[in-house]
């Protein structure tokens, strides 16, 4: 049943073998089978360069930053701030002041919801999110809306998993203060028209946060061309370490917003009567940060730049098409998320087998996929399913990974008939 697609010109120039060699974990086995890693939307594997830079940091550079006059502290501060500069270039932010280190996407969204919310949201104001948001772009807004007496509204989507843009534009009004949307859906793969969303939101004076957790490893992001007000992503989905992420915010907004957390590093002077706050970005970076995480993220960005996001995007689109065609031929398999613009996420259900059982059987074949609701329970409710199985692509996957997946699914069907 497995038919190899003729390899197109692009794939032959894409250096898949040397890319795979950079990821030691891809050479390991699971249950005696070579690892087939298709759970990249959950987290990506780490290349040698990222592993190495973290070890070097702890072996040779470890110190607290922004505080010491001693040599190591200067080195650590330099490396950490250099990484911030790499992020600035990577997303084309105007200034490193607008690039805040956070613990991840979730932390970035919470920062904006809390700080923007406490500074600007009034009773009766409206916040819009979409029907395909990750829980991390739902719950912080529920909390702040409840606190401020604001109203949370949801932009609906259709059966393909595409946002109803006309509906969205009708929902906008002068009451709309904030719109927070995902650029690429982690459970459906939908690529949302964020540029159009931002333009429409700005026309009524609303600010926009884009959740880029699933975007940055797959497509070139230019926050200034996009004209978003905030952009959040996680290092660990971009080949970097866990516990580090980025929040981009436009300077005038960050300046106007109340601090999120108080502590060391975020202050200029403290007396018991009064505290003045540090300049951006430090105003939003209280406490000793994840220094090694930031440096690791910088190395991850260097790695991605070496491969090139244009090449990555094109290669992943080919893989997505290959995988979609292959899985579509499996009887009883239904793909959830069939938007015209999709990134490398294939969510599916099988007629007779629950996703959880699919996951267990595939695991014994060495194949890692995600099963469950993917932290998007409202998406599952929208499609009337309890869960999906999800294969998600990264720059090191191959058509052979999908061949293995298809063969594994055949095994599932043999068991569940």
């Amino acid at each position: 049943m497995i038919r190899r697609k003729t390899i197109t010109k692009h794939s032959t120039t894409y250096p898949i073998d040397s890319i795979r060699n950079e990821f030691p974990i891809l050479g390991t086995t699971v249950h005696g089978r070579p690892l087939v890693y298709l759970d990249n939307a959950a987290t990506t594997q780490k290349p040698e360069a990222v592993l190495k830079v973290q070890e070097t940091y702890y072996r040779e550079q470890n110190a607290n930053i922004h505080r010491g006059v001693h040599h190591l502290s200067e080195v650590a501060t330099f490396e950490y701030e250099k990484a911030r500069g790499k992020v600035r270039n990577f997303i084309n932010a105007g200034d490193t002041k607008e690039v805040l280190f956070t613990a991840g996407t979730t932390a970035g969204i919470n920062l904006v919801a809390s700080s923007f919310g406490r500074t600007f949201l009034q009773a009766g104001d409206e916040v819009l999110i979409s029907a395909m948001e990750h829980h991390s772009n739902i719950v912080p807004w529920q909390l702040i809306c409840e606190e401020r007496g604001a109203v949370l509204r949801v932009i609906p989507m259709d059966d393909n998993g595409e946002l109803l843009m006309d509906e969205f534009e009708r929902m906008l009004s002068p009451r709309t203060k904030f719109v927070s949307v995902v650029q690429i859906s982690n459970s459906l793969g939908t690529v949302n028209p964020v540029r159009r969303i931002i333009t429409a939101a700005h026309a009524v004076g609303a600010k926009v946060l884009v959740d880029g957790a699933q975007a940055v490893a797959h497509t070139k992001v230019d926050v200034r061309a996009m004209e978003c007000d905030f952009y959040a992503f996680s290092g660990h989905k971009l080949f970097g370490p866990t516990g580090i992420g980025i929040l981009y915010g436009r300077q005038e907004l960050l300046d106007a917003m109340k601090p999120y957390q108080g502590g060391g590093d975020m202050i200029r002077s403290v007396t018991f009567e009064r505290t003045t706050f540090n300049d951006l970005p430090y105003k939003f970076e209280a406490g000793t940060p994840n220094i090694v995480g930031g440096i690791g993220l910088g190395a991850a960005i260097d790695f991605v730049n070496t491969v090139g996001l244009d090449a990555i995007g094109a290669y992943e689109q080919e893989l997505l098409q290959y995988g979609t065609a292959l899985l579509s031929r499996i009887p009883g398999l239904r793909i959830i998320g069939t938007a015209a613009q999709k990134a490398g996420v294939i969510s599916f259900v099988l007629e007779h087998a629950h996703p959880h059982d699919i996951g267990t059987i595939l695991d014994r074949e060495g194949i890692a996929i995600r099963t469950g609701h993917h932290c998007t329970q409202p998406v599952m409710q929208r499609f009337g399913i309890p869960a999906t199985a999800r294969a998600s692509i990264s720059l090191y996957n191959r058509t052979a990974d999908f061949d293995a997946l298809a063969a594994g699914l055949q095994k599932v069907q043999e068991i569940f008939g």
Partner: protein
Amino acid sequence: MSELNELYQQVILEHNKTPRNFRKLELFTHDADGYNPLCGDHYHVWLKLDGDTIADIGFQGNGCAISKSSASMMTSSVKGRTVAEAKELFEQFHSVIMTKIGDPVSEERIEALGSLGALAGVREFPARIKCASLAWHALNAALTNNQSTISTESAKD
């Protein structure tokens, strides 16, 4: 037999396909929800006690083959038993599925579980043990927490 075949035995697949007592009880004395927020598996269990005896039991809900077949087998095996017997059975079942990988479980202990013994294969799959015990926890909660008068009110969701 491979570990997968051990897990997905015919009897389990069969209970999954046609679960027993897969219905809501109109008259019940006890009920409870079993929900695993990590995977979304969700069942409701209804019981009708007659004195100390489980006169009737039903369940409904949604989840994987392991959780559904386990719930189905549970209902078959506790129906007609006393509450104390059911709790004892749960303990035996729980201790078998919780046995660490590599630690042998005596054939007698599996045998003593009757048809429930088919689920013993789950102990090779740590991530799935919660699936096998979900309905049992709901049963336990129903027996522990509830009013004992017959209710025809629909259960909380």
